[in-house]
């Protein structure tokens, strides 16, 4: 019966789904795709890959074995072929066999898995330690070996690519869409890098597939992981936050640039500077060329905000050695008093990087979860309360304390921006020195 009427029906459905498949492959296919893990670039990632494939093939073998028996039975032992049913209903010896054999297969899987796990969890004898902190919704990196390098890394994909609600204002989605940041974590190849992972607000997870590492970043905990990228595998590796952390969970990617040990030492010696694309600014022409292709591709898609920060971008691209200054304003620039306009102008990009995820680019917030800046009692009330809010945050809510994330000038700029833009026009401003006094 299954293969008379039913078979015809199944055949029809198969034809329909096959044509659907064809349509998808020809018409809708936009990008290439992967079926399996990303290519591993660390020893542990290779071990995991091999383990994964080993278990996979064992599972395939079990699946094929069990179901070839079942389908043989379905074809042969059917009423429509007048097959006479047997009446047997138990066999202790068979039951024992199919309890013991799977158990032995499991032991065979557990042995290599245990070996890899022990290796993964051994974080001793590292060459470099980096503290990684998850924030809603960005990552902070702090190099722990006396180099004093620390920075935040936020999504650099322009908003116009993400918001496709209105096709007329949207721009085309780029190759590294949602996998690009304003600053990459810089690590050396051939050295054991230990990461201390924590979070500031809610749980995040730091994940680079090609390294075979994933660990939750939990507030109040310091987790550890390590990786040692193969020499010769220098390049850019991309990953994601893997633990649901609120609204912009999908918008806090991780980018790691792996450079050679020599280049890394130079980068550290140079104070850990970044070029306009968020990669290591190292004082040799040779290393920059490696990324020149990526840079020129991405430059054409850079957002207006990014362009205003690096006005001579294209020119500087041509001379890889003279990359632009790092975007981070230094506290020393705050000596002189600044006008409302200057502060607001600086504040706009800081607002975009640190505030707009919740309070929205327009300052309207999201009713019920993230309050509006426009017309808010804080942003239009006494300025000292405003400063305190930015520095200390609001416990129990998503409003983070920015005292350690922004320097005095940045705090002054973003406060001035919030009070004089986004529909507010209080008309006052605050200087970096005032912030320093209030810390």
């Amino acid at each position, binding site marked *: 019966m299954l293969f008379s009427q039913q078979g015809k029906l199944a055949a029809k459905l198969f034809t329909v789904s096959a044509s659907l498949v064809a349509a998808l492959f020809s018409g809708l296919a936009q990008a290439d795709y992967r079926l399996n893990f990303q290519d591993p670039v660390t020893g542990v990632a290779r071990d995991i890959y091999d383990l994964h494939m080993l278990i996979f093939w064992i599972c395939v073998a079990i699946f094929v074995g069990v179901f070839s028996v079942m389908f043989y*039975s379905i074809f042969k032992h059917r009423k429509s072929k007048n097959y006479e049913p047997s009446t047997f209903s138990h066999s202790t010896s068979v039951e024992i066999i199919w309890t013991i054999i799977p158990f032995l297969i*499991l032991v065979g899987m557990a042995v290599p*898995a245990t070996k890899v796990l022990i290796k993964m*969890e051994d974080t001793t004898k590292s060459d470099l330690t980096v503290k990684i902190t998850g924030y809603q919704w960005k990552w902070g990196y702090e190099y722990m070996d006396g180099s004093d390098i620390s920075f935040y890394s936020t999504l650099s994909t322009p908003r116009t690519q993400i918001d496709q609600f209105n096709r007329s204002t949207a721009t085309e*989605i780029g190759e590294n869409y949602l996998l690009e940041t304003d600053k990459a974590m810089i690590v050396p190849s051939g050295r054991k890098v230990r990461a201390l992972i924590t979070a500031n607000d809610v749980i995040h997870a730091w994940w680079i597939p090609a390294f075979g590492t994933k660990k939750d970043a939990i507030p109040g905990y310091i987790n550890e992981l390590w990786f040692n990228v193969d020499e010769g595998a220098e390049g850019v590796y991309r990953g994601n936050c893997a633990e649901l952390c609120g609204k912009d969970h999908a918008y806090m990617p991780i980018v790691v640039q792996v450079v050679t040990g020599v280049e890394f030492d130079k980068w550290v010696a140079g104070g850990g500077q970044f070029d306009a694309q968020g990669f290591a600014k190292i004082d040799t022409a040779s290393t920059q060329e490696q990324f020149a292709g990526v840079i020129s591709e991405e430059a054409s898609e850079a957002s207006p905000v990014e362009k205003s920060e690096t006005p001579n971008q294209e020119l500087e691209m041509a001379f890889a050695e003279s990359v632009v200054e790092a975007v981070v304003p230094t506290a020393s620039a705050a000596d002189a008093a600044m006008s409302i306009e200057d502060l607001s102008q600086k504040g706009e990009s800081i607002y975009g990087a640190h505030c707009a995820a919740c309070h929205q680019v327009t300052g309207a917030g999201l009713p019920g979860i993230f309050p509006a800046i426009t017309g808010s009692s804080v942003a239009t009330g006494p300025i000292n309360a405003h400063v305190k809010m930015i520095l200390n945050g609001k416990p129990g809510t998503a409003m983070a304390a920015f005292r350690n994330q922004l320097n005095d000038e940045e705090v002054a700029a973003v406060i001035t921006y919030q009070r004089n833009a986004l529909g507010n026009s209080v008309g006052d401003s605050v200087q970096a020195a005032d912030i320093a006094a209030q810390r």
Partner: protein
Amino acid sequence: MSHAATAHDHHDDHDHPMPTGFKRWAMSTNHKDIGTLYLIFSLAMLMLGGAFALVIRAELFQPGLQYIDPHFFNQMTTVHALVMVFGAVMPGFVGFANWMLPLMVGAPDMALPRMNNWSFWILPFAFSILILSFFVPGGAPASGWTLYAPLTIQGGMSVDMAIVAIHMMGISSIMGAINVIVTVLNMRAPGMTLMKMPLFVWTWLITAFLLIAVMPVFAGAVTMLLTDRHFGTAFFNPAGGGDPVLYQHIFWFFGHPEVYIMILPAFGIISHIIPTFARKPLFGYSSMVFATAAIAFLSFIVWAHHMFTVGMPLQGELFFMYATMLISVPTGVKVFNWVTTMWRGSMSFETPMLFSIGVVFLFTLGGLSGLMLAITPADFQYHDTYFVVAHFHYVLFSGAVMAMMGGTYYWLPKWTGHMYNERLGKIHFWLTAIAFNVTFFPQHFLGLAGMPRRYADYNPIFTEFNQWSSIGAFCLGFSQLLFIYIIISTVRGGKKATAEVWDNPEGLEWTVPSPAPFHTFDTPPTVK
């Protein structure tokens, strides 16, 4: 369903008149009516939860945000899961238990009929509260169905509403479980020893113990969350010295037995269907019972495999890896028993059998990806990706939900007195099975290639398989309208069903007429 209007005809051994309308349904103490209410509720929640899933799949059809913002997306994933787990799957199985357990053990009704009424009628109110949370400031809960702290501590008023709703669902489940245990242990027909009980009764008995053991744990966890949010405690809030990982341990101590709560009754259902259509007794009855008990026991000591990445000590990771791998032994025994039941039978392939074969085949696929997930080093890579999403939909949809669909076709003639349309039933099966695989099989690839779950947006490299998945999801969702049509038309009419319905099936439920009279087994049958 109005089957009992016809059932009324058979109802001649009681003096009081048959209640109607509000009195019949809202004040019912009859296990069949309450079972019907549960099943209708479950089907309604399946559709609602499915609608949420389609919103998710529409947004994920292309990279970029086309229809909804990420916050609403998170609300959709959260409420989809809560509705499916607590609204569709659990009440669905309670519906089957209500209808079938008394019929299978030869009891006149459930042991505690008024509590039975209460445990059902809590549910519509609980889910109204959950759904109303969409309309409070900030919208519905958006922290994932696991409600992990400290993200839930940040959430709006909807989290409190979800907590209240979960408490109500928990009370309902616990009362349902008490009813099952009391009925099964006290009201079996003379001669029906424990080891003669049908497997659906066995799996539900064990499920009921799981429910009683873990629902209070979940209630405790969400209550601690509530006091963290409003009463200044800091169980889980690191800002006050609390421990976010503690929440996960408590949650998954509930959460892992919960997944067996959702699958063991499904094992029971297909253990009835396969022997009937293979025309051969179930192979290895006692090993099936022991395997079920073993799975239930192991389910209490594997919870931390849901949280390998939180940074447990190596010894902990090894323990939970080994314990998790062990579960595949009793689960494997079950699969081998089903296949051996088919072996040298005389099979026919009516809709319930198609669904059961589908369950054995697809659940096993999900079980094998579960074995892959148990391998801790590899799990670090699979964890929180679409590989996990694919895995648990293979065990939950093609395990639990498809088993319920098979069970519906199997017992619908007994419930309504009419045969369903076999041709439409088969079409429904093939549409469901194919659309399901188009939806979820590509998600394995997405996960392996590195697409995290609970993402509203993704890199274009994942576009291809997301499109497959979205197209499959819409086909899967709309195919279920056929299911509803088949049920309604079977309730309304159709070929009269005999008492046995199928070809010599085993079990006391086939000794009563179809449709089963309003009151059955007033005098207990005797089991040899």
